[in-house]
């Protein structure tokens, strides 16, 4: 079996039928990590017990127990998720050394399904970034060309998966952090509808926007892993009780008559020619398959980036207040604790423990919530957010799936945008509105740029309609130029 191309289903059956052991599968990926991770810096931590964990799965199979649909499937987890007994740092110095005594619900569900957690993946610090350059643990590189960024914030997940250091990964998406790096690295990434996937144990960046999802090599694997991690969790009151469909079983590439929406505001020639070329060719394929094209307008999309940053920074300024050097993680060194003023104790620890971008956003958010500015910034953004959601609700009365580019450009060079925060923020123009409205969104690889970097397209659905975007992605995947390609990392 070629473990680089095998699906979850293939590997899980082979492991259950004892054609290959979970331990062997795990060892195969550990070897790849050993060989390739130094060039990519995709991992912040490799699980030294991974083989032992896999042996437990093998032992269960040997004793005749049903070990679930992901038996022996090797997963890497973004460092934003808590993993019991494994460091969980959110890419930040302030959580250096933090080892949680609990698993995020997503991780617990993967383990219960038989998956092996092979390690933790690099990311922008607290998921604040679009290039993985804000990680305290060094920037991760794009496996298609290591001069380029893998995207962010789930850059480690995208790079590890594209170079097949893992069979599947989990990322998180607050304003595009699954879809954008998936797009830059040529893999499939899905951000589920807000409320589908438990946030318990996922380090919060912006609570009303954060959502975890799979970043994998195929639409089939995306569907399979999505159905395992979705569903109500009693530890997260923002999860919905909707029943979870069998996405993988229901996959259907026949999209004849499906209404595909094109948003006017996304089509105004804002993108790089390579992106437009790939987008147009995917669009033509959809038409060929019999999809019906509907033109739409969602005027407030133009304001999605400001709305997103005002809201996410406000929430983050509060969510990150718990990192104070009292209970866990980093604390500045004080010669004599008994003579330290409490305010200095906090300010030193937080000033030293957070990186520049995180501090910038905490400052922005604190400002937006502070007395005299609340109405103009945070509250105003939330009001516009409701109007935006309403416009999406109207749009989805006219179409099933919205079709758009993921980003305006393919992956950019390391260092190219990191000096100008505003320029970096505007990079999120096509992805943030999905989170603001709480919709489902997906990135699926389709073509290559002139510099041989992958380019994908984005599919967006109304709440809880993930099956529709999975089906369209499944149809597109069959004619994609990227599907099945693995970059050569030197």
């Amino acid at each position, binding site marked *: 079996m070629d473990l680089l191309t095998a699906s979850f289903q293939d590997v899980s059956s082979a492991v259950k039928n004892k054609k290959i052991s979970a331990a062997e599968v795990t060892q195969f990926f550990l070897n790849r990590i050993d060989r390739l991770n130094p060039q990519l810096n995709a991992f912040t931590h490799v699980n030294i017990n991974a083989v032992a964990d896999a042996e437990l799965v093998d032992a269960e199979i040997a004793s005749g127990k049903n070990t679930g649909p992901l038996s022996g499937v090797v997963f890497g987890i973004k460092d934003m998720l808590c993993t019991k007994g494994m460091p969980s740092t959110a890419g930040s110095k302030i959580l250096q050394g933090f080892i949680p005594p609990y698993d995020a619900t997503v991780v617990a569900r993967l383990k219960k399904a038989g998956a092996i957690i092979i390690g933790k993946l690099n990311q922008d610090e607290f998921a604040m970034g679009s290039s993985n350059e804000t990680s305290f643990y060094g920037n991760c590189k794009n496996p298609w060309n290591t001069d380029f960024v893998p995207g962010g914030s789930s850059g480690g997940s995208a790079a590890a998966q594209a170079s097949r250091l893992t069979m599947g990964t989990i990322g998180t998406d607050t304003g595009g952090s699954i879809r954008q790096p998936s797009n830059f690295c040529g893999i499939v990434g899905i951000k589920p509808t*807000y409320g589908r996937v438990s946030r318990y144990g996922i380090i919060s960046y912006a609570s009303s926007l954060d959502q975890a999802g799979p970043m994998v090599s195929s639409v089939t694997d995306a569907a399979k892993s999505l159905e395992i991690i979705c569903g109500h969790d009693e530890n997260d009151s923002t999860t919905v009780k909707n029943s979870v469909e069998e996405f993988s079983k229901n996959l259907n590439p026949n999209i004849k008559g499906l209404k595909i929406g094109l948003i006017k505001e996304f089509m105004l020639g804002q993108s790089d020619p390579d992106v437009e070329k790939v987008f147009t060719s995917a669009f033509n394929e959809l038409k060929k398959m019999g999809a019906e094209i509907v033109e739409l307008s969602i005027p407030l999309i133009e304001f999605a980036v400001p709305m997103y940053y005002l809201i996410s920074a406000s929430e983050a300024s509060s969510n990150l207040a718990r990192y104070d050097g009292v209970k866990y993680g980093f604390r500045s060194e004080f010669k004599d604790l008994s*003579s330290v003023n409490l*305010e200095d104790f906090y*300010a030193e620890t937080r000033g030293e423990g957070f990186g520049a971008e995180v501090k910038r956003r905490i400052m*922005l958010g*604190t*400002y937006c919530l502070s007395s005299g500015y609340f109405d103009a910034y945070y509250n105003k953004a939330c009001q*516009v957010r409701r109007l935006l959601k309403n416009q999406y609700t109207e749009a989805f009365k006219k179409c099933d799936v919205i079709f758009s580019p993921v980003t305006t450009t393919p992956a950019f060079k390391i260092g190219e945008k990191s000096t100008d925060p505003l320029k970096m*923020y505007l990079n999120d123009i096509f992805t943030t509105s999905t989170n603001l409205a709480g919709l489902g969104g997906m990135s699926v690889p389709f073509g290559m740029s002139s510099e041989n970097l992958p380019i994908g397209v984005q599919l967006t659905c109304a709440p809880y309609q993930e099956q529709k975007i999975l089906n369209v992605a499944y149809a597109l995947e069959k004619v994609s130029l990227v599907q099945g390609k693995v970059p050569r990392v030197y």
Partner: protein
Amino acid sequence: MIDEKKIMHIAKLARLKISTDEAAHYGDQLAKVLSHFDQISKIDTTNVEPLVSPLEIDFFNDDSFRKDIDQSFFTAEEMLENAPDKMGNLFKVPPVVG
């Protein structure tokens, strides 16, 4: 324009130690970002209720709320294992006045 005094006040609220150089730098960047973001001020939101989260739940008809049952899943030792400093099973911090 966000002046240094304002930036230092915000940094104090957020408990972030920043130098005066950094303050100037942050002041410039925040001003630039906010002036770009100010474009949302022109949208009419009269009588629009802010949307805080994409979800809303009906209390009596939804049991997402927890039943009042006390259960313990962790020991005090586990909760203190990551503490930078502790004494017995208590977290240790600088002297707090008042």
